[in-house]
């Protein structure tokens, strides 16, 4: 195969105020052959996004190209005239940006944005592009594919946006696809679908791809070739098989070592009992919440229903579930950002006001919320130093040089250089922003932290270090966590208890060891079996299992009647599961499963998943019922 795309000694630098250059990418070279997928992996802030954008002769404002060449079909794109560079972008090279939520234009319909590049570059007519877009929506398991294009970005969830972004990159059939963390915001089940779609396009159209990620398991599934970056330099590169199984560079080795195994029972750590009281730190009772205001005591759009969760002192409660199931909503309700329609929240035994406006400053300090999307949660006009310094000053009254000292400590804690205090958020990488976002909550010295996907954009090393940091904090100060993540291994290793949410309801809840061990709720089981493994060919193997094919190919439907998982459940009972609210069974103490089936049925299903064919008919891949 010929080299479609070559990066030759690429250098990118920023400049300090006084004009001295700060190198960001320090002479990187690698090639991409046609039909090949090259993965860029490396720690957060190592320059992955910067390099990916350089493929289109683009760099963020504030950065510049002092040297090197980027050749597509043998021609250097950096030295092309601007018109040709423009023609290249979106046509020959398509880009999938790291933060999908912010990258969609809120004022334009999804359809127009997805097809824009293809139509503008004249590769397709609007009708052709629309048709292809719809095909892609189908392939990416997006809901309501035929009409989705007419919606606006705010009308779909974050995970859906990321898939739409993928459709946008794929639509024009480019020579080179640049995918910057295309599945970070996705839960494992959806991730599989998206990976499948990428593979298909790359195979069918002979495109090449640069795939940026920090998730080595994913890399193992999609990449042919791996480039390992650290601090703007290539540490090692080679075929996937070789790098995965036999890394030579110490950094790669560490990266591999930090990868968490597939979650299994027993990997959670025991809680230090210094702070262990039985009394709940935060308790959510009978809570129902949703959006669109409250009418007749019910939210217009109900998202969460009858939630009961206890977060004990210095415990970590992991919340898992598919994209859009209401994980963030739960955290928002506890934080007081979204007053619940029904139910109460208790903090240390006293009732919290539903609306944060009525909470005291002390209560606000005790409960800290880390926003899922760091991009929008950091004020673009404030320096990092001020973003972090403010809670310190506000809650603790620490000012001046002492404040700076504290800020520096926080930055060190989340592994960011101290000098970042004088940067604006736009000058940070995705993972760096995420860490600043978390550091801001830490600055308040809370009693309970609501962490919404705090490690999703971090590489395995930094991520495990962050988790270590949180653990240390817990041990030292007794802070408790609500840890929302779709990364089951992280949850498995960090959490003490797990709450499994599905379509706004708790389907399973209990100590980590119980939840991650059979008997599972059918949905929990689906989740666990969808976690990619760090071995080449896992994806293909998984797809062989018919059960997976059945379970995955469905959207989430928030229903009022019956069991929400009914339409995806391999062991659902018709006319029961779809009409009656399932009862709660308690296989062990404090371990609850919500299901109509008996414990025996569930265990039987575990034993022979392949034999359960029930529900397959109604799960034919193209399902109209799913809207």
């Amino acid at each position, binding site marked *: 195969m010929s080299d479609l795309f070559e990066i030759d000694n690429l250098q990118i630098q920023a400049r300090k105020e006084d004009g001295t250059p700060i190198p960001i990418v320090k002479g990187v070279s690698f090639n991409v052959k046609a039909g090949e997928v090259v993965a860029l992996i490396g720690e957060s802030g190592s320059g992955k996004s910067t390099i990916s954008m350089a493929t289109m002769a683009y760099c963020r404002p504030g950065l510049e190209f002092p040297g090197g060449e980027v050749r597509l079909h043998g021609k250097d794109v950096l030295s092309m005239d601007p018109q040709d560079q423009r023609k290249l972008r979106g046509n020959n090279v398509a880009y999938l940006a790291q933060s999908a939520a912010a990258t969609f234009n809120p004022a334009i319909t999804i359809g127009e944005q997805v097809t824009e590049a293809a139509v503008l570059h004249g590769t397709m007519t609007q009708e052709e592009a629309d048709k292809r877009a719809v095909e892609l929506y189908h392939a990416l398991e997006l809901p309501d594919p035929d009409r989705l294009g007419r919606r606006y970005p705010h009308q779909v969830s974050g995970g859906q946006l990321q898939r739409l972004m993928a459709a946008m990159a794929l639509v024009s059939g480019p020579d080179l696809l640049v995918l910057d963390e295309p599945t970070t915001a996705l839960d494992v089940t959806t991730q599989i679908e998206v990976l499948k779609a990428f593979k298909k396009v790359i195979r069918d159209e002979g495109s090449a791809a640069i795939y940026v990620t920090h998730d080595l398991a994913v890399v193992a599934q999609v990449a042919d070739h791996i480039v390992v970056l650290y601090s703007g330099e290539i540490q090692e590169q080679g075929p996937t098989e070789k790098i995965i199984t036999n890394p030579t560079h110490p950094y790669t080795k560490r990266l591999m070592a930090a990868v968490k195994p597939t979650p299994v029972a027993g990997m959670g750590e025991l809680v230090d009992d210094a702070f262990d009281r039985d009394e709940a730190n935060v308790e959510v009772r009978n809570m129902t919440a949703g959006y669109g205001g409250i009418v007749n005591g019910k939210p217009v759009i109900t998202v969460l229903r009858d939630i009961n969760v206890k977060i004990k002192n210095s415990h970590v409660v992991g919340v898992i579930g598919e994209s859009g199931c209401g994980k963030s909503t739960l955290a928002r309700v506890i934080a007081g*950002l979204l007053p619940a329609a029904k139910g109460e929240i208790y903090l240390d035994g006293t009732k919290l006001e539903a609306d944060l406006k009525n909470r005291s400053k002390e209560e606000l*300090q005790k409960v800290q919320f880390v926003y899922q999307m760091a991009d*929008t*949660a950091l004020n673009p006009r404030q320096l990092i*130093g001020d973003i972090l310094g403010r*809670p310190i000053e506000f809650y603790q009254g620490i000012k001046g040089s002492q404040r700076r000292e504290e800020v520096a400590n926080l930055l060190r804690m989340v*592994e960011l*250089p101290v000098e970042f*205090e004088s940067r604006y958020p736009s000058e940070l990488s995705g993972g760096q922003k995420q860490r600043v976002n978390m550091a801001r909550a830490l600055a308040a010295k809370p009693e309970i932290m609501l962490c919404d996907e705090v490690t999703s954009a971090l590489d395995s090393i930094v991520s495990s270090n962050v988790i270590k940091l949180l653990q240390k904090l817990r041990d030292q100060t007794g802070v408790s966590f609500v840890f929302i993540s779709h990364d089951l291994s992280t949850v498995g290793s960090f959490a003490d208890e797990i709450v499994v949410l599905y379509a706004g309801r708790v389907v399973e809840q209990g100590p980590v060891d119980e939840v991650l061990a059979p008997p599972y709720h059918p949905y929990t089981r689906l989740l666990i079996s969808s976690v990619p493994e760090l071995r080449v060919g896992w994806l293909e193997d998984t797809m062989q299992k018919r059960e997976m094919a059945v379970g995955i190919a469905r959207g989430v439907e928030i229903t009022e009647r019956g069991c929400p998982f009914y339409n995806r459940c391999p062991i659902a009972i018709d006319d029961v599961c779809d009409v009656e609210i399932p009862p709660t069974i308690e296989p062990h103490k404090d371990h609850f499963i919500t299901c109509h089936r008996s414990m025996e049925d569930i265990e039987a299903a575990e034993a022979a998943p392949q034999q359960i064919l029930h529900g397959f008919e109604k799960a034919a891949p193209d399902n109209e019922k799913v809207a």
Partner: protein
Amino acid sequence: MTDMTQNEIQDDAQEKTIYDELPDAPPKKTLKLSWTGKLGVIVVAFWALMALIGPWVAPFDQAEILDMDSYLPPGAEIDGGGTHWLGSDNNERDTLSRILWGARMTVGISFVATLLAYLLGVTAGIAAAVKKGWTDMILSRINDAILSLPTIMLGLLIVVALGSSIPILIGTAAVIYASSVFRIARAYGQEIMVMDYVESAQARGETIWWIIFREVLPNAAMPLATDFGLRLVFVVLFISSLSFLGLGIQPPNADWGSMVRESLEAMQFAEGMGAWAPIWPALAIASFTIAINLIVDDISAKSGGDLAKKMIS
């Protein structure tokens, strides 16, 4: 691969050293001015200086009626000695001197009034956007009511009712223009209000002031700064139209707007360069406002133009 990276990598990631030192002070993000911006600073500084020392450098007193004819052309010699470098006005006063004396009134009043208008309008406008509900309703309705009346009419009413003095003049201009600022600030405020970072500040328990001035305002600063530059002119002109109705600055004090207005007739009546009488003060206004706006543009270019420069036609 350098040795240094080798070492780093082998270190435990938690004990990184290269960034560990705290710089002495956070480097200030200084504003880089383009040549137009620098020009703006020079001109504004000049007028600010004149506002302070104008009366002492002016060749004549602003009220001095020199025994000559009205609307003399620039360079005319005066009977009693001296030259009208920029000619004379309708009352045979020296235009240059009056412009220099007038800097104090014009630059001073318009700047203070616009600042006040901004303080008032931005605070209330963003507060309305932040607080929503009844606060917004009440503030917006009052504001709409003020805004729906013609400015001159309002000014007339206020000044006629309260009398004319410089503080009242400043207050009047501030109230009137605050209402326009309010609407614009509120429009931008509403867009910024929905951002997570504002919510996050609210969740921290921050006061409304912090949210207005630290969270929302900096994100609307650029269009508001642009508007500030324009509003300054409006205030200069507003004061001159009040002067025309006999409500503004009292004679013999000069303000540029009124100087233009009073000598407007020269364009018709006077001969030769004497007809330029209104142009000199008009140039003074223009130089001041353009200079201010050039600075504003540089400030806003910092927050707006970066990506724009990456566009390709």
